[in-house]
């Protein structure tokens, strides 16, 4: 019996851990092009980037369990091709494996700006990305430009301010996170950053990068050219404009690839093949909507679920109920701890049953008709979880609101 797991990060190793936990005794081959077990990613925009933690500390629990799991762990090896019908998978070390089960957990890659990538331009996804950015921040650049006011961009901006650096955050949309959050919340994010001294430029696109040639001919970024003609001078540019799921190698595999690996409601992409984490899209029955979630807790929960589901199939047991989850994530910016559960859309109505936006400490509920689609809390962790527990049972608006008495 052989299970191949593509991706040795959070979702992949959680799946491996779960397979063993559930008593699977066959072989588990885990492949990842990364030459080391990938770091836990959340600290890479927070404690490690801030210089508060040594890089070794950014390790998640599943990674720490690897020595106990009896894995055939092949680091520096990528999965390169798959034939879904026969479940044969080719690896970059030349092997071709005919697997009984496959877990696809390849995550995603940070999107870059088109064109040349001169020195000083960074994305943030891996530990190496983090350490090379950190090394530049330690040289105290005069200004850091952050392109994109999503959660990664916002955390990088906050961490850079914490280091005493000048920061400009540039966002093409008129409000930060405008595609996922109603405008009031975007305005809160803007206010939070401005009140901490970040220059926030909204509604202006990036035209290109300004580059200077250094002695010896190498090129270094010197600024960001905006679509309105302005130039933001910066020695370091961090690009946080989203990610692309790592599915290129699956072209021609027979799997459907629409916004990641398309799965059914039980996270299965084909017989004997499951997907989990940032790479997986599936119809979440709680929302009746196909979603792909790029969040830490989902990678753990879905990694566990996908492993159990795969094992049930291999053992010809009854399959688990569909993967139904209220996605949950956190983001730490300055001394604010933001948590959100659910799936809001920009057009939802916002109701604040606790605290206020001005205090930077509140709970916001998102309402769509009779439904509560999501809850967001700033320094209000317990309420977010209480609402989440209600939403797990039903999205009913009144039930969610009842948490606030």
């Amino acid at each position, binding site marked *: 019996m052989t299970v191949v797991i593509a991706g040795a990060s959070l979702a992949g190793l*959680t799946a491996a*851990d779960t397979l063993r*936990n559930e008593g699977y005794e066959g072989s588990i081959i885990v492949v990842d092009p990364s030459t080391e077990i990938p770091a836990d990613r*959340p600290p890479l925009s927070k404690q490690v980037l801030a210089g508060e933690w040594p890089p070794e500390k950014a390790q*998640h*629990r*599943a990674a720490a369990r690897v020595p106990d799991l009896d894995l055939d762990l092949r680091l520096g090896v990528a999965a390169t091709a798959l034939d879904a019908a026969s479940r044969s998978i080719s690896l970059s070390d030349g092997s071709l494996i005919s697997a009984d089960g496959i877990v696809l957990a390849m995550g995603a890659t940070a999107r870059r700006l088109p064109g040349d990538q001169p020195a000083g331009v960074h994305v943030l996804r891996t530990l190496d990305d983090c350490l090379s950015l950190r090394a530049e921040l330690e040289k105290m650049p005069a200004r850091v430009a952050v392109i994109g006011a999503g959660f990664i961009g916002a955390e990088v901006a906050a961490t850079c301010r914490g280091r005493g650096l000048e920061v400009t955050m540039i966002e093409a949309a008129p409000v930060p996170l405008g595609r996922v959050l109603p405008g009031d919340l975007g305005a809160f994010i803007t206010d939070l950053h401005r009140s901490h001294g970040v220059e926030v430029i909204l509604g202006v696109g990036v035209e290109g990068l300004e580059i200077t040639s250094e002695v010896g001919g190498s090129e270094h970024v010197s600024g960001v050219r905006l679509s309105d003609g302005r130039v933001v001078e910066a020695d370091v540019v961090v690009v946080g404009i989203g990610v692309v799921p790592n599915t290129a190698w699956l072209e021609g595999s027979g799997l459907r690839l629409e916004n990641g690996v398309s799965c059914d409601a039980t996270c299965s992409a084909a017989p004997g093949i499951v997907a989990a984490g940032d790479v997986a899209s599936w119809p979440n029955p709680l929302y009746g909507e196909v979603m792909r979630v790029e969040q*830490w*807790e989902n990678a*753990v*929960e879905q990694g*566990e679920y996908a492993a159990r589901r795969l094992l049930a199939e291999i053992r010809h047991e009854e399959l688990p109920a569909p993967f139904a989850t209220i996605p*949950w994530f*956190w983001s730490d910016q300055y001394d604010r*701890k933001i*948590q959100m559960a659910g799936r809001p859309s920009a057009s939802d109505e916002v109701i604040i049953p606790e605290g206020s936006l001005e205090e930077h400490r509140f709970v916001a509920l998102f309402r769509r008709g009779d439904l509560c689609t999501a809850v967001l809390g700033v320094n*209000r*962790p*317990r309420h*977010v*979880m*209480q609402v*989440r*527990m209600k939403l797990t049972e039903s999205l009913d608006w009144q039930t969610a609101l009842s948490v606030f008495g």
Partner: protein
Amino acid sequence: MKIVVNYDLCESNAICMAVAPEVFEVRDDDFLYLLTDEPGEELRDKMEESARRCPKQAITIEG
């Protein structure tokens, strides 16, 4: 089995409470309280799950 929470790491996000409310409780003061630090063996799976899900790795299971 003994449950130890590292309160320096814990952020009271109550993920553990959602998994095992009989052991973990985040109260009105936004602090996490352990209702028991020696849960019975029947709770081992839930304790493992709580530890696995804790984003801050604040939960350790001893024994």
